[in-house]
């Protein structure tokens, strides 16, 4: 099923394409002309060593950093993203490594953070928000959360990650970035989250998985983009590469095998 989705996807324009992205902080160049693309229905892994520019790339796309130079194409047309709200409007959602949840708020409040359902007088409409939260969690088969009205502080790491992912898909999103979603999780909870990642792609979303864990990457990714020192080394198809080749690309930066098709 994933297979068919990918084959049909490769024929279309990428949902999100980045060309020659540069970004520096003072004298530090975090991105030096990075290229990247992801299509509907595929899981694209984004890998690279510490300082390769993965987080910077995400934050540029999410509208948290402004880019110095380069092009962002959404469904083939150039866009510029100023701020998280504009990214959200395009359907780009990011699940951050440190989750970006408010511990003092409950699950519903976190799911709708910054985009609360309200009437003309800015009064909150709690019932619809709660209903859709429950529906969304159910559709993603997240069943371990007992009450959506409990504070996020009381949830386990896997549950928190599930809430963060569910929040990203609540908004008819097109592209979902997951930044190290399994980094802090145990075996069973990692399993849960990886299943969640696959389910997102099956539902037709373009999913970007940023991870250090190549076992995870090879399990769920369809393609793998390697980033090194702020530049893209290459894009590899999961079925035509192996861990050794990817490690080589991450550490030494071998030339691109198939320059972004």
């Amino acid at each position, binding site marked *: 099923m994933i297979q068919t989705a990918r084959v049909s996807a490769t024929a279309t324009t990428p949902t999100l394409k980045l060309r020659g992205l540069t970004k520096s902080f003072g004298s530090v160049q975090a991105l030096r002309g990075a290229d990247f693309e992801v299509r509907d229905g595929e899981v694209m892994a984004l890998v690279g060593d510490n300082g390769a520019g993965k987080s910077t790339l995400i934050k540029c796309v999410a509208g948290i950093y402004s880019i110095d130079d380069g092009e962002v194409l959404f469904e083939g047309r150039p866009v510029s993203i100023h701020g998280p709200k504009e990214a959200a409007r395009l359907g780009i959602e990011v699940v951050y490594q440190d989750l970006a949840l408010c511990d003092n708020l409950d699950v519903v*409040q976190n799911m709708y953070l910054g985009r609360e359902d309200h009437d003309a007088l800015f009064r909150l409409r709690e019932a619809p928000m709660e*209903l859709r939260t429950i529906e969304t969690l159910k559709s993603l088969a997240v069943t371990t959360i007992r*009450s959506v009205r409990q504070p996020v502080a009381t*949830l386990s790491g896997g*549950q928190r990650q599930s809430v963060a992912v569910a929040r990203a898909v609540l908004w008819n999103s097109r592209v979902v970035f997951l930044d190290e979603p399994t980094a802090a999780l145990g075996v069973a909870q990692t399993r849960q989250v990886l299943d969640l990642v696959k389910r997102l792609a099956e539902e037709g979303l373009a999913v970007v998985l940023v991870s250090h864990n190549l076992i995870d990457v090879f399990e769920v990714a369809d393609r793998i983009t390697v980033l090194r020192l702020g530049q893209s080394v290459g894009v590899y198809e999961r079925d035509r590469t192996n861990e050794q080749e990817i490690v080589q690309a991450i550490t030494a930066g071998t030339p691109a095998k198939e320059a972004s098709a």
Partner: protein
Amino acid sequence: MNSAAPAEITAAATDQQSLAEIARARWEAFKGGEVGSLPVIVGIIAITIFFTAKTNIFFTAVNFSNLIGQMAGVTVIAVGIVFVLLIGEIDLSVGYVSGIASVVVAEFQVAGSSHDYPGLVAIGLALLVGAAIGAVQGSIIAFLGVPSFVVTLAGLLICQGMIINLLGTQGVIGIQDHQINDVANYVLTKNTGWIVAAVFTLLLAAASFGTYVSRRRAGLPTGNLMLTVLRVVFYAGLAWAAVAVCNHYRGVPLVGLIVLFVVVLFGYLASRTTFGRHVYAVGGSAEAARRAGINVKLIRILCFVISGSCAALGGIIFASRLNSVDLTFGGGTILLDAISAAVIGGVSLFGGRGRVSGALFGGLIIGMISNGTDLVGSADWIKYVTTGTILLAAVTLDTIARRRQGAAGR
């Protein structure tokens, strides 16, 4: 523990629970650090018993009316402090901002001067000045990132200086304007008092049962209906009792109604609007709020505007109460009393936790101690030591609660 219970997702576990089960769940939550309003209720009862035993003036209708007047200013200021604490900041300037507002409201009614305005206009101007001071301080904190502790400490000194400057030549301004003096001294007729209690009951019932009905219609768990009824009966009962006691003497003081209005208005703002939700979000995690697209800077500034405005209203009440303004205004224990009231009322100093109504209950405790020690004729040092001890206890409780909650999660 959480992952061991793979139950079906429900909105609130309290759906079909009996009152006994709810009580047991609350007790568990209490042990887990969710102390809720219990310490405050126990405190109020304990203080009442203590002073009633010490003097027979304390538990009287006359003293209750006096108490409302004495606690009003600090309570209103504490409501503003709640918003600043909720975003994890502090406002040390509220004492002298209230002093500035006192001077402004007095200055703009001086008979025969070039700026002899009607009382309500003077009150409006004083509120604007308070809001403006809050906006300036909030902007410095939000845009430049200067710690609020330092910005508002500087604000405290600047405002104190301005008061001395404004009052410099004569040192005191009398207030003749009736509208201003009515703020703290007007007493509602007995029938109006009853109407206020009735309106309060209606609003409370509408809000509580409105929530119940809308959840029921949406097919969401509603919680125990009895509990909702009991809550409405309890708070409505308090309101009717308060009116009955006041009417036993002269009637409900207007200033009591003002305090109630401020608490209900800002309580609604905090718990039922997007703005309030964003305030809690910024206090919980400013970075998470920013990434969710919330305008964190604007929220910060607005909280300081609320704090400044509430401080100004407090200052107007102080000025009205004494029918004059002098150099002592804004000083003394106003600042510390207001912060103590908010913290004793359960608002966390670490941001993100607490309710606006806490200011009312904290203000009541602070007011009762001050009132009681005065009646008993204790020396001032006893008042300070008692208030300080209770504040310390409240902050310790908050810290322990926070640590317990951290341990309970994850």
